[in-house]
């Protein structure tokens, strides 16, 4: 079940943020040299949770992908776990970057874009990834979605540095009935100070 998120101050603002081409290009820059820019569009969604209180929001993204050819192996004929991981990363990077840019949800609403760019590669890492493949996806074109289930902001203390832990659920599917889904937890090390 997706947990909802509180928007600090003010009324909730459900919204859809259409595909941000420039931001997407920038987010995928690290993938360019490897020829694996799979995410082709993404729409950030901020919705009221019908099951939750009125002042809480659910954040996610609806995405499209294309994998013209595998970046690391000869054609396997299906969407595999490595590609699952790469596609998740791209969705997640975009989701966080767009959330920062639009200031939609804590803690990202307190960040600026530089906070994101300086952390994108070195400080954002997957700590737990579970993927399940119900039906093979064979198409080059497919869709994906990501939902933030929970964000935990951990303050720095003597025993551990500050940390943001984001639990997500995601799903990929194509028009041929292919379907896979997963639960992924990502951590952001060295986050900007929470009081900022």
């Amino acid at each position: 079940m997706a947990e909802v998120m509180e928007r600090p101050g003010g009324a909730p603002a459900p919204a859809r943020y259409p595909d941000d081409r420039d931001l997407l290009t920038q987010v995928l820059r690290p993938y360019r040299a490897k020829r694996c820019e799979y995410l082709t569009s993404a729409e950030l969604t901020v919705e009221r949770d019908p099951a939750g209180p009125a002042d809480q929001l659910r954040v996610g993204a609806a995405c499209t992908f294309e994998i013209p050819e595998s970046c690391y192996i000869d054609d396997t004929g299906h969407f595999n776990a490595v590609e699952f991981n790469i596609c998740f990363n791209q969705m997640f990077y975009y989701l966080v970057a767009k959330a920062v840019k639009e200031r939609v949800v804590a803690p990202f609403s307190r960040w600026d874009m530089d906070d994101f760019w300086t952390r994108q590669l070195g400080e954002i890492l997957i700590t737990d990834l579970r993927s399940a493949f119900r039906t093979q996806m064979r198409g080059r074109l497919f869709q994906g979605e990501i939902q933030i289930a929970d964000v935990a902001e951990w303050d720095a203390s003597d025993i551990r540095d500050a940390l943001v832990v984001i639990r997500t659920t995601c799903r990929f599917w194509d028009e041929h009935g292919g379907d896979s889904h997963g639960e992924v937890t990502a951590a952001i090390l060295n986050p900007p100070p929470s009081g900022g």
Partner: protein
Amino acid sequence: MDETTPVTTETAEWPPPDADPVDTADLYARLAERGFRYGPAFRGLRAAWRRGDELFAEIALDPGLSGAAASYLLHPALFDGALHTTLLPAATGPDAPRVPFVWRGVRLGGASGARELRVRVAPDGANAVSLTVTDGEGRPVASVASLALRAPGGGRSGAGAALLRLDWTALARPSVPGTGALAFLGTDHLGVTGALKAAGRRVELYPSLRALDDGLRAGDAVPETVVVSCTDEAAEVRAATQRALVLIQEWLADERLAGSRLVFVTQGAVAVRDGDDVPDLAGAAVWGMVRSAQSEHPGRFALVDLDDTGSSGPALAAAVDTGEAQLAVRDGRPSRPRLTRVPPAATSAASPRWDPAGTVLVTGGLGALGALVARRLVREHGVRRLLLLGRRGDATPGAAGLAAELNGLGADVDIAACDAADRPALERVLAAIPAERPLVAVVHAAGVVDDGTVTALTPRRFERVLRPKADAALNLHELTEHLPGCELVLFSSVSGIAGGAGQANYAAANAFLDALAHRRRATGLPGLSLAWGLWEDGMGTGLGAADLTRLRRSGLAPLTADQGLDLLDAALRQDRAVLAPVRLDESALRAGPGALPEVMADLAVSGRTVRPSDGPDLRERLAHLSGAEREDVVLEFVRAQVADVLGHSSPDGLDPAREFGELGMDSLTTVELNRRLAARTGLRLPATVAFDHPSAARLAGHLHRLLS
């Protein structure tokens, strides 16, 4: 049934014109979530209406059974369906399903062979109803003059109510400090390492989790015991609980530490004697949460509270080796906490505890529990002016009715929309209390739960629970401490003392409240914290069968409203800082102390010192069997444990191939299953074992391999 007395006819328009329809669309799905699972033939309730306290319902026999109806005066499935009317959610407030318990005045007669029924259910006192049953034409079929209802789960109605207190039992002073290698993690806020070294112990120091990780990677021996010192009394409760939560989660996530115990050391976070101050309120909250972590993961965590670090070295050095889960050291002597029964107060004189001319403020006063308490205060405790706080104030459903009812009982009632955690708002409410009706008592009954296993909780989920409980309590304390004689009665939870599994955040908040009551009394202010057991009308309403089973196994059962209120009366006649009004599950107590939380061990009925046996030790049984037989025995063992944690009476019908999630296991039942499997197999099992092998068959196969 008495078949000779005819049922009186009640001809009336149907459905009653002034009754409101009740949504019954997903009634059976909702009941199933609570453990009431009815097969297709027994889902007969089709429609329902409500008129005040009365309920009306239509029941239809499953078409497959219609043929059989003619041979019955009243088909059992139809009659059972009629009784489902009593399981419909209440109009307002609490919604705890209750089941038939005692029947009086049952009459059957008139029309027979009915395939449809109309039922009218009306209250008959607080815990009983009367039923009038007619057929689809309105012809009388049956009536029940009084049907007493109670929460499911066994035990006599009203049995088990008890007022408990936490006593600290002195243990022998340690003669020789232990010698095992110790590690200390984090900043030594309390000077613990010095005390341990002075007692002759070698202590490996790791300033952070990263340093411990580096050390283990570099080949350091995994320490059997790691000590952390909690922050000092200046620490804020959020920082202290968050730090402890990090430690607990990291401890459980790191498989290298699976055989290590983490000992939290505090100073002044518990009251060993009545009248003791508890200066470290944040440390008290840490005690609450670690107690919950202990319930979920026995043997992994320990708590030691010191009075003076300097003189406690030998006792602390010994304590970390004893294996006691909770210890306090006072004057160098260790003691451990045990809940004991409080004898009834010597006098039952009902002189009012508070000046009837004064105002009593009740937070959460518009909730189910608050309303029950408000009524009781007026009826039994001479309260004549009430100020009821709720976040939504007058807009709370039922608020006006409650106020009118309390007016009728002779009390003036004001209702204020106020979140007591919002200090300026609370100040305004307190400032508006008229000088001629000064505030004489506050009952802090507000609170929320956000349950989750300790590995799933986050700072945000602590915040949700701490704010309405602990922040509000601190505001109430600080804003009323200058008012002469104003008493603070804090509604806390026994989960802060017994360590409710899946409630580390709630336990933290409630342990904080208990500590605040000690603090107040130590400084001469009247204060009482009531560490309630679960009320079936309160937080207990959402519990399913598995939750109730787990609760009962831990020696507790949900309090009925009457029991709770009677215990409130009894507690208000006592003169102590903290009391735990609970309902004990007598059968769990008779099973001996083994299955109970350690803090409740002394409540067990003497004579049994072992946990109810599952037969001989599993390993021993397997030793005498052949391969195929062993697999069967392990599978039956796993099925029995799964059935037990799910609250099923037997493993029959539990499909070994079905995934645990489909069977209704959640994170808490998984923790419980893991705990039981580890205890009964002697295997050290990772917390994810039931996720990695998610059906009885697969888990049994895994255990079989480990045991071979």
